[in-house]
């Protein structure tokens, strides 16, 4: 095995090396300084410094309340594992469903707060006369079918 001999540089050599490096990269260093000055003037640098200086506090808050970790576990990790089981067509279908259903439900969210109780069998029969309710019931039954299938396969 070759033994590497490390030779310690003198302070003068280090200084000369540093000056040489600065001279060779002077244009980049000027550009970097301009960018730094701009970041400082715009306040972005100060905002970043606040994050850096308060990083330990941020971690402390996270560790005192596990809610964020729980949310990440379910939404991020749970969803990531689920996403890995899909193929491209599944992704496209799921994305389309989220866009269509999410957009429509969002647009009609006001209707939910106007919901009235359905009383008795007669009330249920009357509700079933509505086209939207009929379609919704169809979706619910289909969803139940999927849920049953997925539970069984697990």
């Amino acid at each position, binding site marked *: 095995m070759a033994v590497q001999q490390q030779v310690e540089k003198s302070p003068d050599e280090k200084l000369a090396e540093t000056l040489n490096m600065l001279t060779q990269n002077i244009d980049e260093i000027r550009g970097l300084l301009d960018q730094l000055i701009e970041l400082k003037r715009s306040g972005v640098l100060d905002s970043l410094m606040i994050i*850096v200086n308060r990083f*330990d506090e941020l971690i*402390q808050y996270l*560790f*005192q*309340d*596990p809610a964020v970790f729980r949310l*990440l576990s379910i939404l*991020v990790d749970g969803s*990531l594992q689920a996403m890995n089981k899909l193929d491209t067509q599944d992704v496209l279908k799921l994305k389309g469903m989220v866009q269509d259903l999410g957009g429509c439900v969002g647009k009609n969210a006001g209707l939910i707060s106007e919901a009235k109780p359905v009383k008795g069998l007669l009330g249920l029969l009357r509700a079933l006369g509505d086209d939207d309710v009929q379609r919704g019931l169809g979706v619910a039954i289909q969803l139940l079918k999927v849920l049953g299938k997925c539970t069984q396969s697990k």
Partner: protein
Amino acid sequence: MGKRILVLGGGVGGVVAAKRLAERLRGRVDAEITLISDTDYYLLPPLLVNIALGDLDPARAQLPLSMLSKRGVKVVKASVTKVDPDNRVVETNQGKFNYDYLIASLGTEFDFKSYNLGVGYHNYTLDGALKLREALRNFKGGSVVVFTPEPIYRCGVYPFEIISQLDTIFRKRGIRDKVELTLIHPFERPIQPLGPEAVKITEETFARKGIRYIGNARPLEVDDKNKVVVITADKVKYDLLIVVPPARLPKPFDGTPLAADLPNGRWTVVDVYTGRSIKYDDVYLPGEHSMPSIGLPTAGVPVHFTALASAGAVAGELLGEPIDPAQINAMACAMDYGDFGLMFNCDIKLNLKDNKALWMGNCYSILTSPLGKLIKDLFYKTWLQTTM
């Protein structure tokens, strides 16, 4: 005369406590904060594995303790030899120090004598990490054994990480087919305390990577003459041995009333909420040496938060302000399995009646993905850079 606060240890617990005390007290109370460390740098131990695997230059895993002087903390380089809580004195190789408050975080002793572990490589010190780095660079093939003889050691997830990372490294070097990887460990199933999800991920990873796991191992010794690890049921041959030394009580606490014999060993005993000694009101012990007594793992994250709790208690007392112990209810752990990383969180329930932190089995993955490697890297490097 101002209050003398003595902080022992230049690792995670000592540095975190000194910084927090300085932040809270400076300019508000007449107090002198002195930190005693046997090194003049602060080194973040989780980064030692990066050094050993050749990913990180040692200079980037440490910061000079002199950085604390800008916060008004006096740093003394000395080795602590004895803590005498009855006389409020700490003895060092540079003389004696008196205190009004003591915060001691001296890590653990690494026991390389038992089981003849001294013949193996390790990355529990900077020197050890550099030697392991060299050994791995020169390794061309054969049997690699990671030997963990006892369940209490620094950083519980480390053996599971290093064996997985070695698989990835040897694959990248194109010699994986010439290497056998074996992990010998006292847990029946890998990474068991973290619960079923972690066990499942780790067992699947080991199966995919072709890593042999010998669990529930009852170790006898390392026979370096015949290059075998002897356990009661087997003899495991090695060409490269990486050892995980059991953690022991640091010598300065030996024979002091601060320590007690517990079912899991001899450790310093503290209040789970504040890290305060259960026998001395002016002594706080937020170090790995106290973690087994309160049910927490010997690792940086619980030490960090116990140190914050201790510093909060001392500052609160001196300022006459309500004490905000800042002890944790969650404990996240970042792991690198070579080709992907994991972030696990364990919910912690502090049981003040039994003075224990309950967490085993209450863990779940926050992220299991190649992205997890990047997050681990960012987490530790930011942790280091923001500590002082």
